[in-house]
């Protein structure tokens, strides 16, 4: 099966070369058969990659310990679903997994648009297969997961070795979330290849109009949604597994995933300017290019060892390959732009500074500044060492100092932007739309301060959260009220109809509300508490309103690990509320340990209990308890964002009610509507 996998990948590479070269030839010659042949070759590449990936999965599931990669990341007692997750536990497997996910996008795009858009799709196919070829080069020649174990016999000949068992999977990865977090995050990274391919194809082919944006919009949202969910799942994994009480530590790998998400968010907003007004064509194309380049740059950062990261399992000397590919991609983008820049020319006009258009410009500015701040902080240690020869650390305090004001300004724009009208908004409209929410936000802030809340950022975050929430609710309420009054239905039905008539706009509002919830959750960090103490059975410790009693202590041997578990009774105001079972696991196969954190989570706060193990000095069990306010709001916000993204991807429903009214006047109130009511169209993108 190892030979099968290697062969499938090699064949995929050769097929990819044909699809790439044939695609270029098809563009030049315009021969329909060649176009079809290149497209089919592109789809065949994907099928071959799936076979290669499937064979690696099979090797893991069948404990084939003649394979170096399987030995390194699996063992016999590892549960089947972790054997599947072990595929992306190391450099080689994760690169093949990247290829696999990318191939799903490539296949979907080539298949979905087969025979359509003949002026555009050959270019799209060439760009996507080109990216796929780069990863296939890595999979075949630089970091193949199909290397076999071998040794040199006394005769000098190479002989295969079959190990009895493997080294096992890193304990930090033996957590159910690790089975879904990397696939989702990688789906985001790889998904940005689709809008990149469409943008570059439209530029190269000088494809008229904004059609490429319509074609790639849902793909962009899928990639963006996956990236966002992947980031949040990663944060949740760090929170629940690493046992340090936090969810985000500005590690280079975390930063690498945030950067394309920020520029992708900027693109999702600014693209509306192009759709609505035909503006910012150059900017949008470059935003897509930058987003794609950042996905590759992020991968380079996390795998090259250029910056120190806790995600050390995937570091290697693969960096120059990524740098070369980034260089080539930048060159292609620059040359394509320079040769076709007249195609992107647009007559940008603006009526007023206070308008939706300018709010998008500011939104883009802030998102890009946030991205620049993250990049500069991540790379500053490298720059400092290069310039001064001194190594420095750039940790959480630095990133918080720089990014908090930027994030709060962005939150402010989240509330302001959607309520500004296209073209121009008058001061009267501003007062009408923002006066109330802003006033109520300030009142909420004052009440909070009177109750004792302190901290500039926390109070500002509270004020802005109330402000943004109210503006969103008012937007829903006003629209729904009109529909409800016309249809004689209730406000909830009005909200549902309103949302379904313009899913993109109202789905976007739901995403904004999710962002607000996440901000509220993050603001709770300012009030975190923690306490660590030795806690022999029967002893107690207190944190916040909770009293923790260590009741019993037990240890068990499971096939894959040995476990030590503390049973902690949690009381609040003298009343027992829950039993928690924090656990420490030892994995003999790789001689490493892992923690299973016990969390009592409420909307108000998380009681987060870690059994740290036995104190090296006194041999007593040590319990580390954290009280983390409002953390649940972050995960709740993530769920709301997913809901909003899904809503925004749904097609708009036609305004059936209004049309029906036009055709047959309402029976309930014939006297009030003697003539057909005007049709109100809420369709379109906003």
């Amino acid at each position, binding site marked *: 099966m190892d030979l099968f996998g290697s062969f499938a990948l090699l064949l995929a590479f050769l097929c990819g070369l044909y699809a790439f070269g044939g695609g270029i030839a098809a563009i030049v010659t315009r021969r329909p058969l060649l176009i079809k042949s290149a497209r089919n070759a592109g789809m065949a590449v994907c099928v071959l990659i799936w076979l290669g990936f499937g064979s690696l999965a099979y090797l893991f599931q069948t404990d084939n310990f003649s394979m170096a990669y399987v030995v390194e990341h699996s063992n016999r007692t590892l549960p089947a679903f972790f054997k599947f997750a072990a595929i992306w536990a190391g450099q080689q497997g994760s690169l093949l997994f990247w290829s696999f996910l990318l191939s799903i996008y490539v296949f979907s795009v080539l298949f979905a648009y087969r025979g359509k858009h003949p002026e555009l799709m050959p270019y799209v196919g060439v760009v996507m297969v080109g990216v796929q070829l780069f990863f296939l080069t890595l999979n075949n020649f630089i970091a193949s997961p199909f290397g076999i174990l071998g040794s040199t016999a006394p005769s000098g000949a190479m002989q295969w070795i079959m190990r009895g068992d493997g080294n096992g999977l890193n304990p930090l990865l033996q957590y159910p979330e690790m089975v879904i977090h990397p696939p989702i995050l990688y789906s985001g990274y790889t998904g940005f290849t689709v809008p990149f391919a469409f943008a570059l194809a439209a530029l190269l082919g000088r494809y008229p109009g904004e059609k490429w944006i319509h074609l790639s919009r849902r793909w962009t949202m899928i990639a963006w949604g996956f990236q966002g969910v992947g980031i949040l799942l990663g944060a949740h994994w760090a929170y629940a597994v690493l046992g340090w009480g936090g969810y985000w530590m500005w590690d280079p790998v975390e930063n690498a995933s945030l950067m394309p998400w920020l520029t992708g968010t900027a693109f999702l907003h600014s693209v509306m300017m192009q759709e609505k007004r035909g503006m910012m064509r150059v900017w949008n194309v470059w935003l897509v290019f930058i987003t794609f380049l950042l996905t590759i740059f992020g991968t380079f950062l996390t795998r090259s060892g250029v910056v120190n990261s806790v995600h050390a399992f995937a570091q290697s000397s693969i960096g120059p390959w990524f740098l070369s590919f980034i260089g080539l991609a930048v060159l292609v983008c620059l040359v394509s732009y320079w040769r076709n820049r007249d195609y992107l020319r647009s007559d940008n006009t603006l009526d007023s500074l206070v308008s939706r258009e300018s709010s998008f410009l500011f939104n883009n*500015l802030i998102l890009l500044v946030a991205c620049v701040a993250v990049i500069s902080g991540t790379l500053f240690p490298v720059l*400092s060492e290069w310039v001064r020869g001194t190594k420095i650390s750039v940790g959480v305090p630095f990133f918080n100092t720089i990014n908090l004001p930027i994030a709060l300004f962005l939150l402010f724009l989240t509330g302001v932007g959607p309520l500004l009208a296209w073209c121009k908004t008058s001061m009267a409209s501003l007062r009408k739309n923002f006066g109330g929410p802003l006033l109520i936000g300030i009142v909420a802030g004052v009440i909070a301060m009177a109750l004792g809340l302190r901290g500039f950022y926390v109070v500002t975050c*509270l004020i802005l959260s109330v402000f943004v929430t109210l503006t969103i609710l008012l937007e829903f309420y006003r629209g729904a009220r009109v529909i409800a009054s016309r249809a004689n239905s209730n406000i909830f039905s009005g909200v549902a109809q309103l949302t379904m008539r313009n899913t993109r706009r109202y789905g976007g509002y739901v995403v904004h509300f999710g962002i607000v919830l996440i901000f509220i959750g993050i603001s709770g960090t300012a009030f975190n508490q923690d306490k660590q103490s030795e806690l022999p059975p029967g002893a107690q410790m207190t944190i916040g309103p909770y009293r923790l009693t260590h009741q019993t202590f037990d240890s068990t041997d499971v096939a894959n690990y040995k476990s030590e578990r503390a049973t902690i009774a949690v009381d609040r105001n003298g009343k027992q509320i829950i039993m928690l079972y924090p656990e420490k696991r030892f994995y003999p196969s790789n001689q490493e340990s892992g923690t299973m954190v016990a969390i009592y989570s409420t909307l108000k*706060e998380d009681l987060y209990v870690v059994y740290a193990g036995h104190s090296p000095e006194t041999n007593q069990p040590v319990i580390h308890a954290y009280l983390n306010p409002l953390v649940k709001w972050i995960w709740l916000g993530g769920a709301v964002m997913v809901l909003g993204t899904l809503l925004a991807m749904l097609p708009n429903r036609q305004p059936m009610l209004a049309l029906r009214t036009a055709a047959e006047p309402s029976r309930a109130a014939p006297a009030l509507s003697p003539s057909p009511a005007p049709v109100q169209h809420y369709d379109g993108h906003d």
Partner: protein
Amino acid sequence: MAMIDHCANPLQCHSEARDTHSVVRSPLARRGICFFLFALILAVAFSVAPLFAQAPVQGTDRAQKLGKELMCTCGCGDTAGSCSHPGAAFSGPCEVAKARLKEMNERIGRGESDSAILQAFVQEYGEAALAAPPARGFNWFAYTFPAVAFAIGLALVIMIIRQWRHRPRVATAAGPAVSAEMLENARRQIEREVQDD
């Protein structure tokens, strides 16, 4: 709720839909909104109220708090005050972090100020000991770069807005008035053309 007071090119403006929201607000509806907003404020106030009962930003002690400004060099990537050393036999502060915290406690015991303690660590272990680079010399670059990027970006945005505002508009060609029916047909045609998105 009319949001637009003026638009040079009404065909491009899509804010007309907002005008459809203009319905006379009944006193009952106004009371409903007030009640709803009041309830929302209360909900937010109650949700954050538990925070007030707790003393803000409490570490276990001063050394622990100060330890969060020093890096732990065990490879965990965390600070000495919050090192949990995942993957090791003991998921608490590692030996490196413990040594840092112990040294900090000793210095606190000697009555040294926070800045003096941090400075002593910098002298002993270099600037890499700090979780955030001190804002001086070349390090200023790290702190000011995002601000400079913002300033440059802001200047560009303002310049672009000014340029766009003063750009001459293309005059609308004179011709027969476009009927609602023609507009509707055009809209349907556009929808048909983009249906395969």
